[in-house]
């Protein structure tokens, strides 16, 4: 497991709060000793160590991103800063979106199919072994997308019937399920480790 959150320096994590499960993410982050900050406008991306883009409706979020240059600013932000997208957030990070095709930040090499498992009646809670330490992980799928394929450098950390459900690509992470709806905080801890490593590396680079 990871070191206790209290012994680590506090990191400030933005949670994209245009719509969706942003409160649930903020709650989990607070539990883990990180400082969540809700992001609704482009200027609020300033001073963040990392960002979570939550689940909700990606079509709705895109409408807001298309205002006031938010899209381009967010794109440069996620190219530099650790970002974790869950469900709709994962769709926004992907290079390719299907069913139907839609605009995305295009930073994480993967093809994502929206609503791939069906409607709400097909939503499910599953448990399976993952690359994370600490035994099986509960995965809550709500009208979930499916990652159909990933680029060669994308690491798969968990999967469902052969399709990746949790992936990492450098400082970017994406999940098609909702770790913020489970009591298990390992996925968020894993992301916070990425954020801390990235912050440290940056500090070292800056002081050099």
């Amino acid at each position: 497991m990871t070191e206790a959150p209290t012994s680590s320096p506090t990191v400030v994590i933005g949670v994209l709060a245009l719509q969706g499960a942003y409160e649930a993410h903020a709650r989990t982050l607070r539990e883990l000793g990180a400082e969540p900050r809700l992001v609704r406008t482009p200027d609020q991306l300033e001073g963040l160590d990392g960002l979570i883009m939550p689940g909700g409706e990606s079509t709705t979020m895109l409408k807001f991103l298309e205002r006031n240059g938010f899209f381009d600013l967010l794109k440069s932000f996620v190219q530099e800063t650790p970002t974790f997208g869950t469900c709709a957030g994962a769709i926004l990070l992907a290079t390719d979106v299907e069913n139907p095709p839609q605009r995305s930040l295009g930073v994480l090499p993967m093809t994502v199919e929206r609503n791939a498992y069906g409607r709400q009646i097909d939503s499910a809670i599953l448990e399976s072994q993952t690359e994370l330490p600490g035994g099986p992980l509960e995965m809550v799928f709500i009208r979930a997308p499916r990652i159909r394929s990933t680029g060669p450098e994308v690491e798969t950390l968990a999967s469902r019937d052969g399709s990746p459900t949790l992936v990492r690509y450098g400082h970017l992470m994406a999940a098609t399920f909702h770790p913020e709806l489970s009591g298990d905080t390992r996925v968020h801890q894993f992301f916070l480790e990425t954020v801390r490593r990235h912050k440290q590396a940056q500090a070292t680079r800056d002081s050099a």
Partner: protein
Amino acid sequence: MADTTSGIAQNGHPRVDFNSSSLRLKLGLAEMLKGGVIMDVMNVEQARIAEEAGAISVMALERVPAMIRAEGGVARMASPKLIKQIMDAVTIPVMAKARIGHFAEAQVLQEIGVDFIDESEVLTPADETHHIDKHAFKTPFVCGARNLGEALRRISEGAAMIRTKGEPGTGDVVHAVMHMRTMRREIQALTVLSEDELYHAAKTHQAPYELVRMVAKAGKLPVPNFSAGGIATPADAALMMQLGAETVFVGSGIFMKERATPLDVENNSVEREEAVSRARAIVLATTHYNDPRILAEASEAVTGSMKGLAAAAIEEQHLMQTRGW
């Protein structure tokens, strides 16, 4: 098929079990709908406009409340054919309404795969005593409430989301405000009671003790609390969000022109543009409810608004909010 005959807790487990997969999945979808706008739509074109404007979900129905109010007659579940057309036209979740107590309509809605069922006072009630046993369904339910007791009775029956009722089809926000304020006040009052006073509080609210206790501890409902009924402008939406609504339902406010006449979004480009401007502005105002600068921008962007009907002018027996028990 839903088993609506099993009214008794099985194996001694509580029926409202917040740890059950079934309720967690229902609440999970409700969580995804937070901070957005759910729009009433009557046809495919309106559904497309709603999605294009940034609605998080649409409510498929044959007549919006303003038309039901003006035209009268028995208001029932929409035709499955219409609901399916709308489901095929948009990628966002689709909700549909069943009459209060009409579990067979709810079975139909679950069967065709709607994402959320609204057991709604907007339709003519089918049962004057009983609401639908919502635990018997896999599809989540939203129900209306005017106060805490009504909300907790619906949650005890299995609702995964509450919307304060307001007065539908009016474009007058006054009752939406009253119901949200009542809910807040009654919740707050519970939080200062001692353990032994909660039994009496449960009696006063006519609500299950365990749920009353849960609210007293958490200071909020155990399910998301959305707002509906009379929200017609961007500022109305922001008002309800600031009063504690977690999402807003907008019914007649977007697609209605006169009381019983919808904007013609299919053939009239000016009227279509008006609907689009209202829909976009309300979405913008709901997310940025705490930012007066963006609210002003949203309010300015709207062309025209629903004419509306003062809720105070409606006679008691014509109110929709008093349906449901």
